[in-house]
């Protein structure tokens, strides 16, 4: 038996709300840092130790059972999660969007969230290009609202979006967030090509290993934001021939697995050892954190199989 803290009414154990006054009977949250019960104030900081009790976006999961799963995590080195994700399933249809805020811009976390929400709202139509264009418009508009510092350094982000319709997959992207096709057997394929300095110079003939080691390697050459200019999203589409997994991720994961073969091996190990999609996605985020967690990590896993009709 527990008394309601608000009106001192006795109630049966297990009830979520007080029968008399209707207030939540859940114990007041204790501070995850110092353990003070009920210590977290209205502004989210502990009234005792001052630590931020937790940011919702530090670690988020979307579990759509056997259809899809995604995880986004702050990582170990960044003070907040500037990645954002969108995952919606309707029977065999899956809409997925991953965005990574550009840290050097102002409010990059707002940019990435705006991007996935705008693209996510539009992508149900199956038109990935239109979805990314909606995100471009929404993110560009951020510079003119909110904190005036946004004008000097406008919010910016990357985007990768995919619409899965049965065995047909459409992918679109701007920046260096990636999509991979990891078949159950056989070589994996990177479906996107980074809009980055490294990719650019490698295309021009530079040594790939040397290029990736350059401090400028991750400098992106296309992004979403008011200062991005006119950028046309690049797209790819294919129909799966063999079963496998579509994987979308931010560079917080792929940077530890730059070789597509190593990437595929990690995805397969996660799927094999964990059993469920969500735990495999979590395992991949943990993999990046174990490797250093230098950036925010987002990963989405969507199994896709060929249509049964011959």
């Amino acid at each position, binding site marked *: 038996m527990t008394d309601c803290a608000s009106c001192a009414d006795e109630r049966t154990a297990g009830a979520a709300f007080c029968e008399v006054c209707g207030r939540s009977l859940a114990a007041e949250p204790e501070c995850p840092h110092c353990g003070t019960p009920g210590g977290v104030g209205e502004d989210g*900081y502990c009234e005792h*130790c*001052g630590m931020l009790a937790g940011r919702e976006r530090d670690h988020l999961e979307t579990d759509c059972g056997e259809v899809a799963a995604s995880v986004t995590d702050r990582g170990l*080195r*960044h003070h907040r999660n500037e990645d954002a994700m969108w995952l919606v399933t309707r029977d065999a249809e899956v809409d997925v969007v991953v965005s990574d805020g550009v840290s050097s811009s102002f409010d990059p976390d707002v940019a990435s969230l705006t991007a996935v929400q705008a693209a996510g709202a539009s992508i149900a139509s199956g038109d990935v290009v239109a979805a990314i264009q909606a995100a471009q418009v929404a993110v560009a508009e951020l510079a003119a609202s909110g904190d005036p510092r946004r004008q*000097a350094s406008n919010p910016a982000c990357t985007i990768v979006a995919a619409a899965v319709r049965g065995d047909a997959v459409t992918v679109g992207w701007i920046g260096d967030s990636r999509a991979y096709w990891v078949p159950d057997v056989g070589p994996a394929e990177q479906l996107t090509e980074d809009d980055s300095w490294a990719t650019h110079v490698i295309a021009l003939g530079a040594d790939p290993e040397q290029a990736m080691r350059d401090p400028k390697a991750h400098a992106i050459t296309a992004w979403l934001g008011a200062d991005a200019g006119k950028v046309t999203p690049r797209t790819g589409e294919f129909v799966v021939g063999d079963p496998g997994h579509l994987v979308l991720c931010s560079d917080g994961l792929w940077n530890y697995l730059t070789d597509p073969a190593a990437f595929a091996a990690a995805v397969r190990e996660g799927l094999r050892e964990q059993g469920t999609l969500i735990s495999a996605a979590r395992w991949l985020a943990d993999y990046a954190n174990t490797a250093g967690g230098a950036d925010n990590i987002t990963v989405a896993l969507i199994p896709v199989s060929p249509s049964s009709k011959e």
Partner: protein
Amino acid sequence: MTYTAEAFQNEFLALGATEVNAIVTVTSTGSASGQRTAGATEIIIVDASGSMQAEGRIAAARQAAKAAVACLDDGVHFALIAGVGTAQQLFPAPGQLAVSSAQTRAEATWAIDRLHASGGTAMGAWLLLAAQLMAQRPGDIAHAIMLTDGDNGERAGYLESVLETIAGKFAVDCRGVGTNWKVSELRKIADAMLGTVDIVARPSDLTAAFEQMMTAAMGKTSADVQLKVWTPVNATVRFVKQVEPQVADLTGKRVADGARAGRYPLGSWGAESRDYHVCVDVPPGAAGDEMLAARISLVEGDNVLTQALVRAVWTDDAALSTRINRQVAHYTGQAELAETIQAGIEARKAGDDHTATIKFGRAAQLAHESGNKATSELLATVVEIEDAATGTVRLRRKVAAADEMALDTRSTKTVRVGRGQ
């Protein structure tokens, strides 16, 4: 009365760092109607010691007091004190406050004509009488003007003991006329009583000075506003300073409010904006940790008017943790400027020309860098500034006492930094 508070800081700290600095700008629109939310009491204290006969000071003081009385709004309670070896109430009858009206202002003006200079200087006694009169009007916006032209004649320590008992009860703006008074003495009063100190070198400028002070006082619409600073466990407030419009260290005025918070008196407010520098030492955090280092609230009694958060976020990204916040850097420089000028004046008085030159040189450099033109001009009356950028100065052989006192009293005046990162 609408208040806003905004914190300017670089919240990012390097791993292991524990010092958090922020500039908090508090702005008030004044009351909606421009009307005071509390009553107001004004007391004018005029030095009537024998020395006031010199240079026509007493005549100028009479005129200035009349001008100040003319500035009083209807309904304000007021009194006039003649400062001699004791405190004598000049108007209205002893122990009473008058209510301002055309009639009482005219009566006060006639009373001022009876003010004659003969006697000593007893600032402690003057302020004590003012405090007794103010005590009749608790909750009022309470303000006094004190004019003197000489040193306090009371026994050593008496003024200090009076200040200790009346500190925070009302505000006192101190003005010294001529150059035979001590800046340090009036600054002691102004600091304790949350007021200002300035020199009025020429008696003919007294009227303008009194009008300016009284007009500013009449613009105050809230009586007793405080800055409440909450800090987490194991954190300590290193200092709380007002840094604009002038430097005033409030650290020692802290009154505990519960286990984790303290209140610092800010005095009365009108439609104005002031900046505060808050420095807090916190326990170190891990990479990615975010701590509320201080919650700064503007309070009037139990009423929270506005709030600003000072945060600490630990990162191993040096690009973030080494960012200099312009506001913090600017006001750190302005506070150093005031201290350096006062140290230079002390050194010059002590005959240590070498130290004085170094201090004034640094001051010239700081004033130049921050665009504090007024202070640069005051410095130029005491030293020849050869190169402000490098701080190369030469002491002037002959310095007018009034110039040095003006530099001393106005060394705490600061300028604002342009906003925006």
